């Protein structure tokens, strides 16, 4: 236990001190994006890893959060905090409405339904020009200000995002070890047996779906305040797939999975963009995708449970009593 607390202390300290050694705004930006994606993947991890439901539409909830902030702060002139709160509520409400019919579907059908939903919302971002500004997006989003503290610089935003990651992680950690978390793990194992044990599986899956949408909305809202500009392009199908990829590579149902998955996928993309042209002169984007694919495949072959399961390597094997 003490070891665990020490590890946490070191990790928090490392994240707190990291910006002092980082001089480039670019690197800080990458870390902020990793933090935002971590928040989304934590939610997706609950949905996929614990409730056993896959969603290929989470970029839509991410986008809804961003657009909620954009519209409320620019067109409606709302203060920033209420706009941020609304960016949690709207995706949650939409998830509650579409979740009822959608979550009755299983596996591939659920994946297709969420995928269709994601594409639909992306089209709406493009086409509802009166509200969203269409493909050219919306500018002029103010900086987030909390009680006089204005988050106008990357370094401030870095701390905001990672404190949020920490708080969300703690909340989820508590959730998983509660009665509800236990029931979610039971659903993943056998829905039939869960029902006969008295668990309202449909209700619980819906709650997990709404919760993951709220987290995606939160990340979206923060993202809008960070870049102060939104357009439909970061919220497409590709992003949804990336979120699922992060969740799987990181390891479903593991505590460190979301952080490791988001960190690896984002960092790998950036590193490859820089490294590939050094090795293969004149190489274009397609080479990056090839190497990206190869590395991810290797990870899944070597560690199919995902990176988050890497802590297993340090555990002593338990000798089971054989009857």
């Amino acid at each position, binding site marked *: 236990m003490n070891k665990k607390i020490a590890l946490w202390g070191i990790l928090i300290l490392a994240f707190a001190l990291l910006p002092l050694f980082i001089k480039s705004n670019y690197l800080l930006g990458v870390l902020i994006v990793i933090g935002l994606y971590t928040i989304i993947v934590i939610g997706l991890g609950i949905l996929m890893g614990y409730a056993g439901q896959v969603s290929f539409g989470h970029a839509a909830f991410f986008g809804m959060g961003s657009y909620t902030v954009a519209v409320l702060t620019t067109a409606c002139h709302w203060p920033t905090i209420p706009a941020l709160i609304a960016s949690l509520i709207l995706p949650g409400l939409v998830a509650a409405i579409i979740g009822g019919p959608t979550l009755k579907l299983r596996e591939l059908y659920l994946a297709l339904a969420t995928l269709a939903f994601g594409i639909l919302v992306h089209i709406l971002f493009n086409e509802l020009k009166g509200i969203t500004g269409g493909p050219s997006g919306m500018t002029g989003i103010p900086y987030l200000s909390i009680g006089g503290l204005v988050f106008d610089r990357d370094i401030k935003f870095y701390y905001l995002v990672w404190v949020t990651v920490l708080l969300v992680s703690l909340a989820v950690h508590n959730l998983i070890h509660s*009665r509800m978390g*236990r*029931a979610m*793990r*039971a659903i993943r*194992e*056998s829905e*039939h*047996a*869960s*029902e*006969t*044990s*008295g*668990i*309202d*599986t449909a209700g619980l899956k819906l709650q997990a779906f709404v919760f993951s949408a709220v987290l995606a909305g939160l990340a979206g809202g923060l993202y809008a305040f960070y870049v102060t500009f939104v357009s439909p392009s970061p919220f497409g199908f590709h992003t949804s797939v990336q979120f699922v990829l992060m969740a799987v590579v990181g390891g479903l149902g593991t505590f460190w999975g979301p952080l490791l998955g988001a960190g690896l996928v984002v960092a790998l993309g950036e590193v490859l963009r820089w490294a590939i042209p050094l090795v293969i002169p004149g190489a274009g984007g397609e080479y990056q995708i090839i190497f990206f694919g190869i590395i991810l495949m290797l990870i899944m072959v070597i560690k199919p449970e995902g990176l988050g399961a890497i802590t297993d390597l340090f555990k002593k094997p338990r000798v*089971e*009593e054989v*009857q």
Partner: protein
Amino acid sequence: MLEIKGLEVCHGWVQALRGLSLQVSEGETLAVLGSNGAGKSTLLGALAGLYKIKKGDILLDGRSLSGKSPHYMVKEGISLVPERREIFNSLTVMDNLLLGAYHRYRSKKNEVIIDVENILNLFPALRGRENHPAGTLSGGLQQMLAIGRGLMARPKLLLLDEPSVGLAPLVVREIMSTLAELKKTGVTIILVEQNTAAALKVADRALVMERGSIVLSGCSREMMGDTRVQQAYLGRTRVVRPAAAL
């Protein structure tokens, strides 16, 4: 306590229960016998809310429960220990037991802990393995865990679907003697079994189902003496083989 009136259940085009009626009184243990496909498991499934009821009604203490969802049935006091156990393999023994008490979140935590203790007293073999993943247990222990999980719901009516299936004779005897213990606590039990001899020993009353209807019923002792039951399920008569004119 339990009253079933003209129950009809269909699996697609196949009618699994054909107007089945029966009554079970409080504290009674009823054995349901019959060959494969007679509708025994369907009867338990319908009582647990797993199947849609086409016609008829299920009354528990005078209240209609037809058309209710499985988790609602558990709340109402009907707990099913499913066939092939269906425990949560990757979860620990303790988690499995606590999940049985999932709907009792309003009851005091102490009560649930006392119940866990009672289950461990009932199945002492589970003690000391509380933190083992349930999937690593032997078949017999898994069956005990499944029954324990069912009991954690504090059911009025416990439904057991073939608890002896796939278990060694010694383990079957142990489980059956535990059921006899359980009876003393006053819980009402409906036991579906292929192992007719073992079931009749535990049960107060038994009925035989064939193609979705009850064809025979009576108290266990009568049933044990009934030549039809003996012939069909207890294997006590010489099997008349068809002539070798194949």
